[in-house]
């Protein structure tokens, strides 16, 4: 039950007794009466978006995208130390904890394979100027992810749609060894999240994967897994 006190409007009644006929000022009094009138409970208005993510890579599954609507600030940004929630996405594609970071969120339904796409709906009540953040792992890497950081949704009216392409980022939490033991995607089925951080410690653009074929002898990856920017296309449509 919401606090009803919030929904009362203060109404000022200015009572001026009709004493205009009297010339004597003493007979005129001002009385201020404060009455509380219940205002109607506002009906929450749903503000909904559809986010379509297309995988543009040759051989990188995109983990179920985390779509988060939040207030000002960044959930991740180049140059920042990544949160553990982001590290979980970047190292193993698991978005559960990242999805709790905002005001509203929605996760994808399974990974998006190369050439495939997925549309995810997310709804928030009353707020039309939320920030949109998306994050998803490139599965056949150590800690590569893609997404968008705090895009201002106030630019979209109902029916509007915006499309962009996004590059690959490096979470900076795990060295890019590309080894079978450390790449969790289908190319290697190695370890996912590991709380130890042994790389730069900062989010950056991703340098790309080298692969065994291109001279990294410890790599479990092949030319099939190489990518260039951009790696995904995102379309955002405000539906209500």
């Amino acid at each position: 039950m919401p606090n009803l006190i919030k929904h009362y409007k203060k109404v000022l009644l200015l009572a001026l007794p009709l004493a205009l006929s009297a010339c004597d000022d003493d007979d005129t009094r001002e009385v201020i009466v404060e009455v509380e009138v219940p205002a109607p409970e506002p009906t929450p208005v749903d503000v909904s978006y559809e986010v379509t993510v297309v995988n543009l890579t040759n051989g990188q599954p995109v983990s179920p995208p985390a779509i988060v609507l939040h207030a000002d600030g960044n959930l991740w940004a180049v140059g920042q130390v990544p949160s553990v929630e982001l590290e979980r996405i970047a190292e193993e594609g698991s978005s559960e904890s990242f999805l709790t970071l905002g005001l509203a969120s929605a996760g994808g339904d399974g990974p998006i394979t190369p050439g495939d796409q997925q549309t995810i709906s997310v709804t928030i009540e009353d707020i039309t100027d939320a920030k949109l953040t998306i994050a998803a792992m490139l599965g056949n890497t150590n800690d590569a992810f893609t997404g968008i950081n705090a895009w201002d949704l106030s630019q979209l009216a109902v029916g509007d749609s915006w499309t962009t392409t996004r590059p690959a980022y490096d979470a900076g939490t795990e060295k890019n060894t590309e080894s079978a033991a450390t790449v969790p995607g289908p190319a290697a089925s190695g370890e996912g999240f590991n709380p130890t951080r042994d790389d730069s410690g900062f989010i950056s653009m991703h340098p790309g994967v080298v692969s065994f074929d291109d001279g990294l002898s410890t790599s479990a990856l092949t030319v099939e897994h190489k990518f260039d920017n951009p790696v995904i296309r995102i379309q955002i449509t405000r539906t209500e």
Partner: protein
Amino acid sequence: MKRINILSAAAMLALSSQQSLAADISVEIQNLTHGLYFTPIAAVVHTPDASLFEVGEAASTELQMMAEGGSIDGITTLATAAGADMIANPAGGLLAPTMSASGDVMTTDGNLMLSVVAMILPSNDGFVGLDNWEIPTEAGTYTVLLNAYDAGTEANDELRGSGEPGMPGMPVPPPLDPLLGTGGSGVAGADTNATVHIHRGNIGDDSMTDGTSDVNNAVHRWLNPVAKVTVTVR
């Protein structure tokens, strides 16, 4: 006497409104890469007919100095001669991966274009570049993403060597010294494209003692963009 005063006041007003064409701007450069360093940055605000580099054209000697060795002395001389305004070396040396550096400049009337250059390390003659970007007149914050270019002046052998223009190899300042290998045999000969062009990237190898390259292939590669420039017009 009074009339003259009024006239001179009008002249002053005209002068000040003309000066308002000049802009008070700040320029921030962020290194977006995972493992590259930028040498001292030159951010130059100049007239539309001036230029620090053009893709498809041979690099100037001054650009070559910057791209092969990280020295912006030549660029500074060019900028001064062209009456440009300049933010020189805002990072006070190397700009490490994901770090930012910024500077303010009051531009001179007529200097409407921003160009930015800095060498990328490790590389033979790679540089991050912004070429003649028109500074908006409306106050606000603007973002530009930059690519890595190859000056086309030196073979990309990816071996430790010299930063002197015309001398082979890569300069290796202290922070990079422990990260690079030795004893490489050399990756590539002279560039096929001897003009300024988009850099094809480092090849590198996974050996610290031999192989073809002294560059670490799991650390010193990159994909574009490599830098973000944020311009604030006040």
